[in-house]
């Protein structure tokens, strides 16, 4: 099953790549690298059709969604050592054609003017622990959530580092194990922060690495069935970390547009691994009804919360 899914993923990406390639063949020149400082100073890109200088040099797509691409015939400069500049430095400076050449060397101008990325995420974590069957017949736990990121740093060569904040929720109930429980529910809210470093591979494709850390607030509610009905409730807050890498497929050439003036749509596919302490599944009574005899309740063992994960996200970046 997993192998078939992997194949499906592979073919889906290939198919998408082919389609995207067919559509992105129209531009005759590759878009200019946003981080190449010299072209930005020498030949600033147009922001809109009205400002664009040699109209034939750009295709219609560039006109509608201006990029940081250099004019046709411009010679690329050899790349120097990685430098840090503001993401929108080239574009904003490029509007002023009379501006003096920028000084050489990396520099950080502003961290608050990069692109903002909002994403709707589907994060799936494989629970390798059989105890998860208490809550779900599948060993895949799906978390739905949202996240927002900000392109904070850009490096020569195309690397962009973006911090993210997000939240996701997982919910599972009614697995096949321990049918003695009439209610078996696990709900967890995951609050996280992350750093994503991405690198453009093509106008529509990026690779990235991502490190996430956060807190999982997990609640487990169990109810025994039958005559001896009882409710048990467990709550746990624990740190968790994810390390992953993946690909971003997005609408082409949106990257170089000035922030706030273009809209890129895309989706991410990330594979990684989650590390988190195991969750102790205890039978803590939700209500104690004045027992005279002390009660020792069993525990259901520890549910491992570590495992491989796959994150899918649909995002907008503007």
């Amino acid at each position, binding site marked *: *099953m*997993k192998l078939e*899914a992997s194949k*499906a*993923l592979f073919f*889906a*990406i290939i198919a*998408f790549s082919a*389609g*995207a390639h067919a*559509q992105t063949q129209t531009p005759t020149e590759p878009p200019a690298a946003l981080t190449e400082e010299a072209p930005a100073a020498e030949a600033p890109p147009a922001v809109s059709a009205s400002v664009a200088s040699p109209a034939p040099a750009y295709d219609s*797509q560039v006109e509608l969604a201006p990029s940081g691409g250099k004019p046709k015939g411009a010679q690329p400069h050899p790349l120097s050592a990685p430098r840090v500049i503001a993401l929108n430095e080239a574009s904003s400076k490029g509007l002023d054609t009379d501006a003096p050449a920028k000084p050489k060397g990396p520099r950080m101008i502003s961290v608050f003017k990069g692109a903002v990325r909002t994403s709707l995420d*589907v994060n*799936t974590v*494989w629970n390798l622990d*059989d*105890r998860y*069957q208490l809550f*779900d*017949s*599948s*060993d*895949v736990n*799906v978390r739905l959530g949202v996240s927002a990121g900000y392109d904070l740093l850009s490096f020569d060569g195309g690397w962009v580092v973006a911090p993210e904040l997000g939240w996701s929720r997982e919910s599972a109930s009614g697995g*096949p*194990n*321990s*049918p*003695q*429980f009439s209610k078996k529910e696990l709900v967890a809210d995951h609050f996280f922060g992350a750093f994503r470093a991405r690198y453009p591979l093509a106008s529509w494709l990026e690779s990235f690495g991502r490190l996430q850390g956060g807190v999982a607030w997990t609640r487990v509610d169990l109810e*025994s*069935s*039958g*005559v*001896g009905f*009882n409710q048990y409730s467990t709550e746990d807050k624990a740190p968790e970390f994810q390390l992953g890498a993946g690909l971003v*497929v997005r*609408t*082409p050439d949106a990257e170089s547009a000035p922030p706030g003036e273009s809209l890129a*749509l895309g*989706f991410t*596919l990330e594979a990684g691994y989650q590390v988190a302490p195991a969750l102790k599944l205890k*039978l803590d009574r939700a209500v104690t009804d004045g*027992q*005279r*005899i*002390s*009660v*020792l*309740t*069993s*525990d*259901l*063992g520890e549910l491992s919360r570590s495992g491989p994960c*796959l994150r*899918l*996200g*649909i995002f907008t970046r503007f």
Partner: protein
Amino acid sequence: MFSIPRFFSIPCLLALGVSACGSSGAKENPSSFLPPLALMDHAVFIDRENDRAFLLDVSGNLTPHTNQVRLPKAPILAQRRLSLDPAADPDEVLILSAGDLDATESVPSVTALNKRGEQRIYKLAAAFDSMVQSPDGRYLVVKFSQANVANRLLFNRNEVAIIDLTQPPKAQTEASEADELTNPVDRTIRGLGEPPESIVFSPPLTINGEERQLAVVLFKQVVALLDLKHLDRPEFTIELAASSVDAPSINLEQVLFDTQENKVYLRGSASPDIYVIQIAPRDVQNEPNKNDFVPSLNQLGGGGQLKDIALYGNAPERRLLVAAGANALVIDADSNRVTSIPLPSPATKILLFEGRSPQVDTRETRALLYSLGSSDVVFLDLSQIEDRKQRNAERLKLNSYLEVIPLKPNVGAASASNQVMLRHAGLLGASIVDLEKRTVNAVSSQVDLKGGTPDASLNGVWVAPSYQNKVGFIDLSDPNKIQPKEVRLDYPVTDLLLFTQAAQQRVLVTHDSSLGRATVLKATDLRDLTQAVTLEGFLLGE
């Protein structure tokens, strides 16, 4: 340009693929448990729906954690292995599993499970649904009941499997190589057209200088003798009465063994006679596969309906006491002389005991004769009864009783005495009858005391009425001071298990809970709730 629907169809496709990647685990069925069993210091709970046993340790520090053991498919019946010496014999539970008709590797079996979770699995050739143990726990015969619980399409009711529990399982292939018998041994008992009703094991008999046990297979009017030490030899099938349409059936019910004279006494509910089988040795030196004994049949005329029989006395004073309703019969086992003793109250049951009487301060064999539903019991002094007849009978009147629970005296206890508990109907409680003093102590109760559990270790009776929140103990250790004690629990009672032979004498009371809930009490101080604890969740699977 990218079209939006096409663009988002890709992640949707991926999401679908990912969600389909999860593999389902083995499904667990809703649990359904056989009645719990007590080993020396472990409680055993058998989940027949999920083929597993939970072993709960009730010694030492109590925890709600169990050792979970996988069992062969479809356990349908479980018994504690019997023992004449619990301290020396293995403490095991015997579990009969029906297997799975649809899975060739999952055959019917008997599992001997000890408290450490170790198992010996004896594979069976048929899906039997009934087990009978010898009193010493050595032999186990598995057979078909009338109910056919295993629900098989075809089965031979005369087929049995005989397991020697002191030996490991031995399959056909192993046995062929060693030229030995398999374990279990499969046999089909000849029945002259009728299926076996029950099986009774003899105590060890010395036949031809060799100690051995016999299995006596009872049919309605046929009996089969099987030498358990030589299962390669054929059984004897003895027809007690000619089979004919007109002849009434004997309906064999009861078997007694005379180990001194190698005799077997048989009683049928519909026969006025007692059948005696004499086991005599036979020389078969040249025919090793033939039985080295031969049975001979004799009949003792009792007359009337014989309800119960009991053997007492040593040879040559061996006597058979028969409860025959309004009379008791004393039959000389050698001369067949019958003495009829009119009883002051009709009796259908006999309880023999060794003890004194209010008149005679010597310990000798006496009998209590009673009839369930009656309001009388009759004491019968068996010494010189053939001469003294009804002068040896004494009637004791009390409330109508439905159950008689013999309370075995604690061996070696200074206050050892013979007592029985008679449970009365409804809310009348119980009567404790001192068999030596012939006195009665009435114990009143707010509930029906059905199912009292005698405790030889603490010399008393535990009472745990179902679905009541209370457990009681009637302490009989001092006949002059009978003190019922009780404790109120937090949950209604379903079962009571005694662990009073363990180092830490405890009582486990189970409660109705799908997760497993039980209260463990200190047996010697029931009311000390600081020593009590309720364990919860021990029946949850891993």
